[in-house]
C-alpha cells in the first residue's frame, strides 16, 4: 500500500520535473494535462481509448515476464494480430457484416499474436535462441509482413493506396457514444486484466508459471515442466498483444496501412513494469499513461514538445522505479541472501 502511494507520488514528481526541464510552467502545465485527460467526458474517453492498447500489451508483458521470458516482441505480435484480423475480414467479405465478424476477427488477432510469440518461445526452449534476440528479429519481420499484406493480398479494392479496405461499421467494436471514440475494447481490456489475474494468482497453471519465473532451475528440479510453461506464457502474452492490435484496428483505425504500428507494443513494457508486473497493478499504470498521452496534446500550447514528453516521463519513471528496488535490495543485503534478477 505504502509502495503504491509512493509510486503514485513519484510519478507526479517525475511529471512535474520533466515539465520544468522543458520550460513549461509546472502548475498551469499540470492543470492543462489534467484537463486534457479528465476535464470532461470527451477527455475521459480519450484517456480510456489511449489506455486500452497499453493495458492489453502490458498484460501480455506481465504474463511473459512473470514466467521468466523477456518478451520484447509485443510490437510484432500486435502487428501480426491485426494482420490476421484483416485477413479474416477479407475472407468474411461475402457475408453480411455484423458482430460475428468482430468476434471472429478478434479471435484471429489473438491467434495470430499467440502463434507469432510461441514461435519465439519454442525457439528459446528448443534451440536456446534468446527471447530478447528472436523477438527483436520478429518485430522487424512483422513490419515487413504488414507492408507486404497491405500492398499485396489485403490491398484495398481501389488499388491506389497500400492499405486495406475499411471495415464496415457494423463489424467495428461497438461505440458507446457517436461523438466519442470510446469503444467496447475498453471493457475487453478490463476483462482481460481480471482474467490474467485469475490465471496467474488463482490457478495451478499460473502458480507454476510464477514459480518458473522466479527460478527456472528450481522449477525444473521440482518436476515442473518449465519449458512448456514458458512457451504457454509466450503464447498468452502474444495473444494479448495480438488482441491489442485487433482492438485498435476494430475500435479506432478501421483499416490497416503501413502507419498502423504506433509503438503500443513497446510502450506496454514500461506500463507493465510500473504496474509492478501485476495484472491489476497495470490497470492504474495504463490509465496514468493513457491520461498523459491524452492530456499532452493540450501541452503543445506551452511547448512544441507535446507528446514526446510522455516518453521521457515513462523512461524516468521506470528508471526511478528500478533505482527504488535497488535501495530495497541493498537493505536486504545484510542477511547475506540475494535473489537472482528480480
Amino acid at each position, binding site marked *: 500500500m505504502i509502495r503504491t502511494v509512493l509510486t503514485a507520488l513519484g510519478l507526479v514528481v517525475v511529471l512535474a520535473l520533466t515539465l520544468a526541464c522543458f520550460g513549461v510552467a509546472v502548475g498551469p502545465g499540470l492543470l492543462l494535462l489534467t484537463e486534457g485527460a479528465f476535464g470532461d467526458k470527451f477527455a475521459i474517453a480519450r484517456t480510456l481509448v489511449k489506455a486500452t492498447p497499453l493495458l492489453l500489451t502490458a498484460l501480455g508483458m506481465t504474463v511473459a515476464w512473470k514466467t521468466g521470458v523477456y518478451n520484447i516482441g509485443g510490437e510484432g505480435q500486435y502487428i501480426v494480430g491485426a494482420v490476421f484480423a484483416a485477413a479474416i475480414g477479407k475472407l468474411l467479405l461475402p457475408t453480411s457484416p455484423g458482430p460475428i465478424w468482430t468476434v471472429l476477427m478478434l479471435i484471429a488477432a489473438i491467434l495470430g499474436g499467440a502463434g507469432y510469440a510461441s514461435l519465439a518461445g519454442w525457439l528459446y526452449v528448443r534451440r536456446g535462441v534468446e527471447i*530478447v534476440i528472436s523477438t*527483436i528479429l520478429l518485430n522487424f519481420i512483422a513490419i515487413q509482413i504488414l507492408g*507486404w499484406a497491405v500492398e499485396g493480398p489485403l490491398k484495398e479494392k481501389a488499388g491506389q493506396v497500400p492499405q486495406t479496405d475499411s471495415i464496415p461499421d457494423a463489424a467495428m467494436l461497438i461505440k458507446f457514444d457517436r461523438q466519442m471514440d470510446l469503444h467496447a475494447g475498453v471493457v475487453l481490456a478490463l476483462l482481460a486484466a481480471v482474467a490474467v489475474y485469475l490465471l496467474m494468482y488463482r490457478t495451478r497453471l499460473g502458480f507454476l508459471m510464477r514459480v518458473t519465473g522466479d527460478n527456472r532451475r528450481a522449477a525444473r528440479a521440482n518436476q515442473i515442466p518449465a519449458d512448456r510453461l514458458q512457451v504457454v506464457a509466450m503464447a498468452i502474452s502474444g495473444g494479448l498483444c495480438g488482441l491489442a492490435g485487433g482492438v485498435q484496428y476494430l475500435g479506432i483505425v478501421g483499416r490497416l496501412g503501413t502507419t498502423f504500428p504506433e509503438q503500443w507494443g513497446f510502450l506496454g513494457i514500461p506500463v507493465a513494469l510500473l504496474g509492478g508486473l501485476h495484472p491489476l497493478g497495470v490497470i492504474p499504470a495504463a490509465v496514468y499513461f493513457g491520461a498523459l498521452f491524452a492530456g499532452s496534446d493540450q501541452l503543445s500550447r506551452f511547448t512544441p*514538445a507535446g507528446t514526446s514528453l510522455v*516518453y521521457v516521463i*515513462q523512461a524516468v519513471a521506470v528508471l526511478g522505479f*528500478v533505482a527504488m*528496488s535497488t535501495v530495497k535490495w541493498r537493505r536486504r543485503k545484510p542477511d547475506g541472501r540475494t535473489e537472482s534478477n528480480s
Partner: protein
Amino acid sequence: MASTQTGWEDRIELVNLLRYAVPLVLASTGETVGQKSGVINIGLEGCLMVGAYSAMAVTLDTRNPFLGCAAGILAGLVLALLFAWFTVWRSQDQVVVGTAINLLATGLTLALFQSRFGQSGSLLSLPSLPQFGGEWDVVMLFVPLLVVLAWASITKTTWGLALRAAGEAPKAVEAAGFSALKLRTQGLAVSGALGGLAGAYLTVGLTGSYAPGITAGRGFVAIAMVTFGRWRPFWVAMATILVGFADSLQYELQAAGLPVPYQLLKALPYVIALTVLIIVGSGKDVPLSLGQAFRRNS
C-alpha cells in the same frame, strides 16, 4: 526515409554498399565488445539516437561535422554509462533498464528536436564529412581498422582476456584480481561510444540530414547481428554487411521490375539471422554469463 535514397536507382557500387553498412558495423562491433564482457546493451538503439541528435545539434551550431561526431560519441558514451550504473553497479535487469534507456532517448531526442524546430520537423540539411576518392570519408576508413582493433584487443591482449573472462566467469576474474564490474563498464563504454558514432555517422556521414526516427531500429539490428556473427568481430562485420546488401538489393530488384515483393527482401536479413540462430542454437560461442547481473558478495 526518402533522404537516404541517393542514387540507388542508378547502380549499386561497392563503396556505396559499404557506406550504408558503416553505422551497423560500428554499432555491432561495439556491442560485440560489450557482450563479450557479459552485458547485453539493450539500450544500444538509444545510444544511436542520442548520438545522431547530438551530432546534428553540434554540427548545426559549429558547422563542423567532426565536432558533431565527437559529440555523438560523447552522448552515446554517457547513455551507456547510465545503463552501466544501473545494470553493472546496481545489478538491475539489463532488459528492463535497456528498455527504459531506449524510451528515454526516444523521448529526449524528439522533445529536444520539437522544442528547437517545432512540430513540423522540416528536413534539416547539415554539412557532411568531407569526401575523397569518390565517396570515401574518414569514418569509412576507420571502420576496417576498428574491426581489426576490436578483434585484436579482445583476443590478443590481457585486457581482452580479462574482459572475456568477465563475460564467462566474473567470479573467477575477480579472484584473479580484476574488477569484473569495471571490465563490464569498459565493455559498455565501448559499445556506447561506437553506438554514438554510428548515430552521428547516420546524420553527418550517410545522409547529411536529420529527422526524428533516423536510426530506424539499427541499434536493435546490430544487437541481433552480434548473435548472428557468433561474437566474433569479423563475422559480425560480415553479417552486418550482408544486411546492408539485402537492404540495397530491394531498390535494384524494384527497378528491374522483378515480381519479388520487396518486403521479402527487406525481411530477408532478419529471416536469415533467425534461421542461423535456429540452426546453431545458443551454441558454444555465447559468453556464459551473458545477460546475468554479477554481484560481488553473492
